[in-house]
């Protein structure tokens, strides 16, 4: 019996999968978002005059082989009040974002703790002529986090927290 239990535990350990916050643009439909909209626990927040666009695009492949057939366009600067992506994360998790600037220059995606307003870091979005960037940051504390551009347009493809 003990042998069987040990075998079973090992099997479970090998095959178990960890939970994660996950937003892939491939799971979305084209839309112009002007309010707070939920996608499986992750929110995209737009406003009138500060909308976020989800649209189909030519297939784009990230350096790790991930392919995206749409894009989330943060059409300009955002803030805690509009034009951001919002998700819950736990301390110690790694937030990974696939992103690219909508212009030729590198642009900055702020990662902000919604409760404290503190900016915990900035992720660089490479210029549009470069490959999709994959940027990561460690979550310092449990909470809700906002992702928004600090000044100009950034396209987001995948947000995953694991």
């Amino acid at each position, binding site marked *: 019996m003990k*042998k069987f239990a*040990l*075998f079973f535990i*090992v099997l479970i350990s*090998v095959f178990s999968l960890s939970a994660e916050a996950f937003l*892939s643009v*491939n*799971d979305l439909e084209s839309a112009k978002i002007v309010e707070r909209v939920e996608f*499986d626990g992750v929110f995209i927040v737009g406003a009138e005059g500060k909308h976020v666009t989800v649209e189909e695009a030519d*297939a784009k*492949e990230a350096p*790790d*082989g*991930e*392919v*995206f*057939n749409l894009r989330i366009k943060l059409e300009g*600067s*955002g*803030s*805690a*009040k*509009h034009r951001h992506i919002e998700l819950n994360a736990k301390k110690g998790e790694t937030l990974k974002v696939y992103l690219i600037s909508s212009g030729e220059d590198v642009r900055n995606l*702020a990662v*902000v703790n*919604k409760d*404290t*307003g*503190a*900016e915990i870091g900035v992720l660089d979005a490479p210029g549009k002529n470069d490959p999709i960037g994959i940027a990561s940051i460690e979550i310092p504390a449990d909470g809700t986090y*906002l992702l*928004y551009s*600090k*000044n100009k347009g950034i396209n987001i493809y995948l947000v995953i927290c694991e």
Partner: protein
Amino acid sequence: MKIHRYFILFIVLCSSLFTLAAESVFEGIQNPVITSIYVDEENPLEIVVEFNLETDGKKVNKGLVEMFDENGKLIESKTVGRSKKIEKKAVFEAKRTGEYTFIAKGINNKSEETLDGEFVSFSYTYPLFSPSITVKNLGDNTIYASWDSVKEAGYYLVSLDGKLKRVDSTDITYTGLEENKRYEITVYAVRSYDDISSSTIYKTARAEEDREWKFSFFGQSTKEDRNRIEILDADNLALKMYSCTTNSDGSDIQDKGGKFTAFHDGITYYYTEIDPERENFELTATFEIDFINPIADGQEGFGILAMDSLGAFGVSGTNHYTNSAGVIATKFEETIGGNKKTSKDTLGARFVTGLTEEIISGGDSLIAEMGRSLGRAYSYDSSELVKKGDVYTITLKMDNTGFHAIYRRPNLDEFGIDEYILYGKEELLQIEKDKIYVGLAVARGCNVTVRDISLKITNPLTDPPAEEEPPEYVPYDVKVDSPLGWYNEDYKFVFSSNADGTLSVKNKKNLVIDSVKVKAFEDYSETIAIKKGINDLTVTFTPDSSFIPWEGAVMASYDNINKKYYESYAPIVISQSVIYVPYDGDTLYVSPKGSSLGKGTYEDPLDLMSAIHYSAPGQTIVLKDGVYTPYDGVKIERGNSGKEGAVKTLKAENRGKAILDFSYASSAMQVWGDWWVIDGLEIKNSAENVKGLQIAGDYNVIQYCYTHHCGDTGLQISGTSGEPYDKWPHHNYVFSCISHDNKDPAENNADGFAAKLTVREGNVFDSCVAYSNIDDGWDLFAKIETGPIGEVTIKNCVAFKNGSLSTGIGNGDGNGFKLGGDGIAVAHVLENSVAFDNGKSGITSNSDPAIILRNVTSFRNNTTNVSLYGKGDGSRLFVAEGVVSVDGYDADDVSEMPELESDSNFFFNGGQSMNKSGAVLKESDFESTVYEGFERRDDGTISLGSFLRLKDSTLEVGAHL
């Protein structure tokens, strides 16, 4: 033995796992299944393949769909990324009719192996597209029709008035047609089993060749959805032109696109190109006004415009400066016969000249200095204002003389003007030297239907030779710039003229000034003796007959009978009556019921204007409590001044209790004199587009005044653009004044306070409050046409809730402190001041690249709290120290000068306010973020109580009021 058995079990387990790993990487994943293949209804060139495939990210990372032709050749493959949905699709563009086969596959990024589905066939018929034909007159009654090749069409059938002809090419020419007959042309693309027709085109056979017309929109404030055209008839050219969107019933404007200004335009433009070496032109068109902004702002309109160069298509972020000649309907302003005329919107001629690429690249100041913009209305009569439904036929002609802006209309009397001329074609050949663009234009808030468009081309070689340009008539601007009332026998007489000449002045029969030389634009000043009572001065100015204002110009007088200017150097006589009435004592009292017969005592007060006219330097005019309703406004004339050390004072006996109510007047209060102290007045209800209090003199102090509910800005420091810079107001001090609820009809101009357009250095606002004004709290606007203004200081001031009135009326588009305009660099200073809850930005440079901010607090404004930006490529010279910006709607914009981020500035980044080192300021760092009103302390400074006061008083940032 126990250990040994567990070890064996472990090895077996690992072996099992290894065996599993050696099997397919896709173990457990179903093969992809194509569920549907169809042609996209909205795009018949696209074949959509829908398939089911689980993409878990570990075994299957993505999908792949491949398309093969009848021969099994791979044509294209599409990659589809992973998603939670099993249902996926791939879209292919088919290039021809045929039998295709598709297969869907699952892909693992780390393996060569693929997870294949079944092959599925699909039969596709490429759509036959309707030919897009263009038809042109080649002249000599020959029509040429051409069309794009239609894929898979075997041949074409062309129908001309029902008669079919087979054509294997993509064009056809019909010669010998009947002149002026309108023909019907249709083209059929034919495939073996089907065919499709084009739309039918109507074309009239003509002797002249057709011209190519093009559409564009460019320039400031243009946008694709607002600036557009709609062709109504391509044969007899007719079109609709748009420059705005309207509400659903067309009664009001929604969004405007573009503008007409003095030197640059943002327009919808439908134009053709002219070769000036080979072509002169005459373009006539009839415009029907479908819509014009019911609240005109003077920048909207329509017309025919010839341009030296074109703006870049669709570019609105750059002003398009160019030389131009046009007949346009927009705002016009002139002084005619000594009377200022203004009209928005009416038809007139506008000529912009003097610009080159070098001058344009030199920036706004150089453009204003070297360029010339001349606008002349055909009429200022209000009956000529442009209205919805009106119809106008106008002409712009270019011949060897130059450009003729023509508006002929019936019932024009002998004095009416119907043509203005810009002499010299070369004026529009300074930027692009080999072509001129001419076309139809609309801007900003005007939509039209244009018909009866006629373009006649003639040959410069055979056209009449150029006519000599007559001299430009420069009207005299001659005036006695001294007040009509005086207080002693030594009257300071000041005279100015825009021409050299000789001046004589008589007081009745006595010659008091005898034939002195006067220079143009230099004031002549002399103290002359006057007597008590009325002094009838006869001022005779004899212009110097050799005086030429500039090359090609002469001085001119206005013939009131014939209503036109003519060259004249005849003497000009001005009669000026100066009344000398002395009042002794330090104080003159006035009351609403005072009269000119009063003694000026408390018991026997004067009327307000008498006291103003006859006060002496050092005297104080005291307004007794009450409501004054001056029917002619209140004007302190230039020359009616105190002196340093002996100011004139105009004060309320009790602050706030002397009320100047301009409800019944067409003007309000103006101060053109110097060294006045205006204290404690309440000024309200000025007429539409009339400022409550205008300060145009120097060294004045305005304190403890209220300006509210006026038809334009409450308190504005400004002179006039007709005078040179050295006459603009300077060194005025506005202290502890409050300005609120001011609103102009267009709801885009009435500020609380302004020092703009025509001000010199040294003007200061201290401890003032502006709130609930329809436009901005403070406006320090400058524009290219008038050039840079002097530096203004705003300190210890508060601006809140500007953009809408206290009642809530207004669209909220108001800034707290708007500190510049048109990219002109002026180092205005804003210090120890607060902006909160304004409809737009709290503090904005409005493109002035040289603003200085010191210890300011900006909180909870409706867009950015702080916005510092310039225009163009010039240097950015901002200074910012001690800025506190908390809880904005957008992140502060300091991106043009990132070095402004420092430890002394807490900019709002969209989530929080922090300085460069990462220290954070939050709302909880203030004693209070609840506004509970403001107070005026005994010393006149403003207190906000604990609102926005930092708890840590040692922090040397933000405002401390």
